[in-house]
């Protein structure tokens, strides 16, 4: 029987426990080693559960920070994002 922490990427509690047992203590490390939080929900459902497991494993010794949530925050077709190129926005890269 499996206990799922991240349903998007099918990451189990056993996998997270294994990562923590190896001495990793951050949400970012769990993400990089298991793929947790990298599916369509982008961590909306799993990141807190992972953070609390990290918090418990570290005994509160390490401040727990969330992984960086980059835009877009919700799955977006590339075609929709590409339309921004037709506007008069300027970006830092242009300058």
């Amino acid at each position, binding site marked *: *029987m*499996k*206990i*799922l*922490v991240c*349903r*998007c*990427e*099918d990451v*189990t*509690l*056993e*996998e997270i426990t294994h990562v923590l047992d190896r001495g990793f203590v951050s949400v970012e490390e769990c993400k990089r*080693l298991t*793929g947790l939080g990298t*599916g*369509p*929900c982008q961590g*909306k*459902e799993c*990141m*807190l*559960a992972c*953070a*609390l497991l990290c*918090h418990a494993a570290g005994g509160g010794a390490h*401040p*727990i*920070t*969330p992984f960086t*949530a*980059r*835009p*877009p*925050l*919700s*799955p*977006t*077709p590339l*075609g*929709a*994002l590409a*339309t*921004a190129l*037709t*506007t*008069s*926005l*300027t*970006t*830092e*890269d242009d300058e």
Partner: protein
Amino acid sequence: MSVTLRFEGKEISAEAGQPLAVALFVAGERVLSRSVKYHRPRGMFCLTGHCGACLMRVDGRPNQKACQVPCVDGLVAERQNAFPSAAFDVLGITDFVFARGLDHNTMFTSPQILHSVVQKVVRHLAGLGTLPDEASRYGTPEVRHLDAIVVGAGPAGLAAATALGRAGRRTLVVDEQLRPGGSYFAEPSDGAAQAARAVTTAEDAGVELWSRATALGWYPEDTAPGRAPGVLVVGRPDRLAILTADRYIYATGGYDQNLLFGDNDRPGVLPARAAGRLLSRDVLVGERPILVGQGAYVEALANALTERGAKVERVDGHEKRLVAARGRSWLAGSWVAGAELNVAGQRQRVSGDAVLVWCEPTPASELPRQHGAAVELRPEAGGFVALADEHGRAAPSVWVCGDVTGYLGPASAALAGKRVGEAAA
């Protein structure tokens, strides 16, 4: 008004505008997709477009959130990610073969030839959906500046927008759901009525409201003509909106969470608030739901479900604890049939047709964080809360209010929204 949908060769009748996931649930279609790795069945879960469990192919477009797609006549819905079908998926065998888990970092990395073969097979089986039938067309983005933008049309956002509107500020509320009202709709007794009142009050204050408008992110490196750097990009069904404002108020609320127990991903395991959202659409989640947790929301939900004729099995989470969800075989992808409990050290099985879990929604603090707000892990408040001063100010031109600052519930969130809206005005 009734409309007819086509679902894998069947005709299903639904109410116009009802979310596709809810229409399929009412029609008895419970498995909506399969998971990406172990091909475990997935059903509706959060009903707010946040979880990724209900992605379906709709009208030839992959990965549409079935809980956020409104039913229209002639809509064609298909399940994806399964062979031959999501209801019976032979690829579900991977779940048993890799009962102890499957680590794609270390699996079949040598010899090289086996690695490349396995990678080819895995890439064919994995992934979400297949390409759309035809390219989608999107209109030119709308670029606009406002006195105030409020993200989230829940209790806090609507109250903040009302205060800003009454102060004469040109205010736009963007909200990703099919209808404005946010967590009011999860209120078990009269959620829809409370939402309607708050929306009317905001509109009377001159506030403009967009539904199906998802705030995709704060892009600090982009600049709209004649404005300070930074744009808020909002995704709508047919085009983007690129917005700037003098004041940004984030009332993004919280995401419903699951608990950690055996087979907690089984279809039929739902957040308690999802059962409340179904009630607001006049749909009963089950005849014999198992309700896990304690607190004001759980009491209100238990009462409302009982009034509707359901026999509610209560599990308090302390004396009686949830060990696992039970159901039929994974291959057939069945809905929950009950739960295994730990009652004062003794294993006990109960039957039921839904497992409803309560835990505080976790603050949706990513967007204010992108825009400069600090966040901090506060487990007792539900997660990473957005930090702010006593006026709700989190960063220059940025305010936060409602459940994103830690779970409050609708009544307190509305009060906080009013206070922050008045401060920001």
